């Protein structure tokens, strides 16, 4: 299919006797938010790591932008336009908020081995970095150390860094984690608009957000995709009710 940006076919990963991913097949199409849900320990984060290239799959194929990327490492996949955020914020604590985003811009520019010009006086880095900070509402924190901003702001900074990479697809690992209801609502609105820029594979426990945002949902249980479909499909699926939504539905 021409509008498929990312596709996994039969991705499998075994840790000892634990089958973390059991022939997972799913795809991410242009313009959509595809939510990946499932109980704790279902293997959602492991799957994200396999897509990002941090964990090597035992078998299966991953295609991204029409290219077979099994052999590429995480750095190469990021450079191809696969941007991920982390479940637990993973930032440069001693950098300022702005420097965190600039580092991503440096990578996009492809020019890291520059030894003389100060980064902070390089408009080609600072301006696009500030633009992303403004988008997520962190512009007034630009000069603060990333270690000194609040938890919610660190989540926003994760997003700004991902945005700065100008990716062709986003892998968001629980972007709402630890955010208050107000923050979650704001981020939901933001992600809603973001799908037009690049499709999003969204791992999220906040079901309100998932049902509000997702074009399609895949349900992962014990490493297996037990169902994929629209919000209504998933809500009405008996397997899903049994395995996952049980009490809520």
């Amino acid at each position, binding site marked *: 299919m021409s509008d498929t940006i990312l596709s996994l076919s039969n991705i499998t990963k075994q840790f000892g006797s634990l089958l973390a991913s059991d022939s997972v097949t799913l795809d991410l199409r242009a313009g959509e938010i595809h939510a990946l849900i499932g109980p704790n320990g279902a293997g959602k984060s492991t799957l994200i790591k396999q897509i990002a290239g941090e964990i090597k799959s035992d078998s299966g194929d991953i295609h991204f932008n029409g290219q077979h990327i099994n052999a590429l490492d*995480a*750095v190469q996949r990021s450079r191809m336009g696969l941007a991920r955020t*982390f479940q637990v914020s993973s930032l440069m604590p001693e950098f300022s908020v702005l420097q965190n985003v600039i580092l991503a811009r440096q990578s996009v520019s492809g020019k890291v081995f520059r030894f003389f010009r100060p980064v902070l006086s390089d408009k080609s880095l600072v301006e696009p970095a500030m633009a992303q900070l403004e988008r997520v509402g962190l512009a007034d924190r630009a000069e603060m150390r990333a270690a000194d901003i609040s938890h919610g702001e660190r989540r926003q900074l994760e997003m700004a860094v991902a945005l700065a990479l100008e990716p062709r697809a986003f892998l968001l690992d629980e972007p709402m984690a630890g955010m208050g209801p107000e923050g979650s609502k704001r981020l939901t609105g933001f992600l809603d608009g973001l799908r037009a820029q690049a499709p999003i594979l969204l791992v999220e426990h906040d079901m309100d957000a998932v049902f509000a945002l997702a074009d399609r949902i895949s349900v992962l249980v014990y490493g297996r995709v037990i169902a994929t479909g629209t919000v209504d499909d998933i809500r009405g699926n008996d397997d899903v009710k049994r395995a996952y939504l049980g009490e809520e539905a």
Partner: protein
Amino acid sequence: MTMNRETFINCILGLALVIVPLIALGMDEPFIITLATKVAIFAMAGVGLNLVLGYGGLVSFGHAAFFGIGGYAAGILASHALNYEPIMTWPFEIEGTTQMIIIWIVALLASAIIALAIGAITLRTSGVYFIMITLAFAQMIYYFAISWPAYGGEDGLSIYVRNGFPGLNTLDPISYFALCAVMLGLAIAFSAVLIRSRFGLALQGARQNSQRMTAVGIAPFRIRLVAFVISAMITALAGALYADLNRFVSPSMMSWHMSGEIMVFVILGGVGRLFGPLAGAGLYIILEHLLGGVWEFWQLPLGVLLLIVVLFARGGLVGVLAGERKHV
């Protein structure tokens, strides 16, 4: 623009380095000028190490190797020149030299090549393994120097007349101090530019969070390797100056004690602080000569001091005086 506290401390440190030997000159105390020269040279070796240790978070326990390579560049080239023996005659003839500038270029090139080889292997490890493997490489080079009779082996190599620098009487203590102080200044200025550059940002990023580096698509290995090479070159240049200060070079310049001392300068003064190595080397030499003069176990309080710094003052002397940084 108001000057921040660290800049102020740095100015004081720089001024102290320049003023002390000038006072010594007035009081006709050439020994103190020599000590100040030693501080400048040690500080420069530390500036080199600080690049990888402080900014890159890579604890190299083998920097004495590069210090010694610089020293031997000076010793070997000078001994050939002074004995009128060419270094090689085939396929083309290469003569020795007593010109510091040529010696420095040789020191820079030799250390860069060796650092590239050592770094390419050691930087595939991290943590304790990196410490031990850099130490192992340095010890290999140390034992090689000991067992190489052509250049004095264990006895070392004397440089009978200090090598020359155009327009300068290098034998005059204050002139040689000035040369070393300028070289230190250049090394610090170069570091200051480097750490603010794209490369510097990536290097400091690699220290903090390699997961994040990977996620933004920058592979830390090549960044670290280049930093390791630049770091070795600065330390080697300091080694060349040190050999000329003593007019003597021996394998002890490459021993693990020396690696440890260079590390002490950086840690004592402030890891990842631009003027940290100068503060550390200064304090070390002062302790050695004030305490060392009255008590042969002067290294005991030094050890206690080091412990206090590591436990309570991670920013070292500069950190204590200037306070915590806002951001890198």
